[in-house]
């Protein structure tokens, strides 16, 4: 593929966005209000659209924009247990994701190393991994709540269990597929097992391991929103649930945008780390 000029693609992106918002704004102008006439006392008790026989319409881009601005100007307020700013909620979610993900990495990378270096273990553990891997992490939630008896730890556990598989499989695969020649050279030079592991296998497998880490963070960020909607309390997922409770679509759209941006940032950080350890043969 020929490389496109960056300025041209940027302009096209902006045009597409403008087109999308324009269509949205136009469609929001027409929907909603009906033409029924009711008495003023009744009208005062219901929403503007319901007063004229219609339904409350989908919010327009302008309303959503106003809400986003409101959230972003004061993201870190705390006005009670159940009323905290979007920044605070994001921090809770990120904290959970990084804890669960960090523990998963601490377990998966050494374990993957061992599995990758020993064909016997690889064969023995592979059936378990293949069965456990495709389970939706949220299916673990009731089990976790029942056994751990703590909702905060349960959501961290769910992040742990969903992010461990890509890391484990990629590490094992990366370690197992280090080129024979390199291992033979190390053996010829009489390197110890530890020295071979750290100086030959680890650098060789690093790009594959990093790819596993990158896949995992994506999954973890997807799962935390759902887990928090289920368990509630704090976090960006709880924020979405809470605004759903108030049927406030403008706030939900704000949260969706923020979730997307944070997910992209996390992914890009790991992409940079992957580039840093990759090599040309």
């Amino acid at each position, binding site marked *: 593929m020929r490389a496109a000029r960056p300025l041209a693609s940027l302009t096209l992106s902006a045009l597409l966005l403008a087109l999308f918002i324009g269509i949205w704004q136009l469609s929001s102008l027409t929907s909603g209000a*009906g033409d*029924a006439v*009711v*008495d003023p*006392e*009744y009208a*005062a*008790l*219901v*929403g503007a*659209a*319901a007063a004229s*026989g*219609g*339904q*409350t319409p989908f919010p327009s881009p302008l309303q959503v924009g106003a809400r986003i601005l409101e959230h972003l100007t004061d993201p870190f307020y705390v*006005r*009670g*247990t*159940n*009323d905290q700013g979007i920044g605070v909620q994001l921090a809770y979610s990120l904290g959970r994701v990084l804890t669960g993900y960090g523990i998963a990495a601490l377990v998966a990378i050494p374990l993957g190393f061992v599995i990758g270096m020993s064909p016997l273990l690889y064969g023995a553990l592979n059936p378990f991994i293949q069965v456990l891997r495709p389970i939706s992490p949220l299916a673990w939630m009731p089990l976790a*709540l*029942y056994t751990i*008896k*703590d*909702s905060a730890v349960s959501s961290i556990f769910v992040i742990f269990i969903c992010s461990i598989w890509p890391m484990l499989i990629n590490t094992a695969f990366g370690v197992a597929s280090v080129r024979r020649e390199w291992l033979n050279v190390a053996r010829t030079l009489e390197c110890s097992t530890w020295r071979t592991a750290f100086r030959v296998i680890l650098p060789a497998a690093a790009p594959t391991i990093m790819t596993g880490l990158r896949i995992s963070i994506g999954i973890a960020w997807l799962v935390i929103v759902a887990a928090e*909607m*289920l*368990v*509630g*309390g704090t976090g960006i997922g*709880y924020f979405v*649930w*809470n605004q*759903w*409770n*108030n*049927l406030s679509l403008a706030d939900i759209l704000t949260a969706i945008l923020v979730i997307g941006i944070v997910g992209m940032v996390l992914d890009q950080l790991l992409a940079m780390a992957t580039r840093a350890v990759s090599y040309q043969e």
Partner: protein
Amino acid sequence: MAGPFADPFDPKTALWGCSCGRHASQAEHDRALACEPVAAAPEPNATDVEALSARIVETAVTKAVFGTEARRRAFLSLVGKATAASALATVFPLDAAKEAFAQAPRAVEKRNLKIGFIPITCATPIIMAHPMGFYAKHGLNVEVIRTAGWAVIRDRAINREYDAAHMLSPMPLAITLGAGSNPIPWTMPAVENINGQAITLANKHRDRRDPKGWRGFRFAVPFDFSIHNYLLRYYVAEAGLDPDRDIQIRAVPPPEMVANLRADNIDGFLGPDPFNQRAVFDGVGFIHLLTRELWDGHPCCAFAVSRAFINDTPNTYHALLRAIIEATAYASNPANRREVAAAISAQNYLNQPVTVVEQVLTGTFADGLGRVQRVPNRIDFDPFPWHSMAIWILTQMKRWGQIRGDVNYAQIAEQVFLATDTAKAMRELGLRPPEQTTRTHVIMGRTFDPADPEGYLASFAIRRT
């Protein structure tokens, strides 16, 4: 120094009005004996409640032992304070008395409590007690935590993440019986609200108000173990429809009810407010009937705690119960409803438009059909957990196959619905609880006699037993 907290072992203190005991107050005594300079007694260093209550006990005992001021002063001057105190202690268990006295009014074992609630108007007393200071008034520091659903609130309460919780009134019965979870002794010391629910139908069913024509309708209720489920089943069964075969009933969290009604996934719901009113507010549905038209005074939600919480922290439990009952009494006064609505609609609590909550609590509401209705007892608040209510709920649990076998109705009702505790707390707050714990209820014109639950159950044509 005079007054209730003066040191009774100080000879200069006046326990009987003045220091000689013949005047009503120290000031009067001073005027009568103006020439005699009175040295100011040092302030007792009794700053905390514990020391003050100990002082009150000492004073009472000293007064009883000596009888008159002159005798006490003579004795104290002769032997000194320490000796007097120890001499007294040999004839009277002063320390034990101090301790016993201190136990009574204070000694809340646990001040910081967590209470979970679902953001619906049924939780009004639990929620309002926070911003309106009822918890603080009873010496408690309570955090009220909005929770995502009934199963979550049940699991968190069972896991002891919450000290107490807002539940649906059948839930403590179901938890105790082990229906839908492991059996754990649970209790319901107070009813949160009575009435206050409604059947909301989609706007397209404006002309199909007769339940006989509801075959094939899809309904939502908040939870399987809910008064909503039992009332909806009762209502359609009275119209000749079998709720398990002729209509569909699914458990849907309240906020999703309006969204589902709008998306045409359900035809209606029997749900808690503010979501009935919210459906009207957003032009999605109309209020078909209020549940008070089915059973006026039916219990809905519960203030629930585990039996273990009561046993481990009895004083905390009583303080909490008093706070809840006081809040309930405040909410039951129609004059306070607007104030309560404003307090609980905030983002930290219900997170709903004030006008929606106000319509629910005041009973002046838009019904979704273009009329403004005035029903002051649309929702009401009465904490008394009638045992007969529990027995009715148990009959319906059995009727629809949620529990099987022989049910000891009266015993379970007594064990879970703590009417005696409620009555005691009500009396302490100057309220008048009913004398009985059971009575007959009238549900859709049919009288329920709590003395004969099996006979009542057998009288229904449509049942699963």
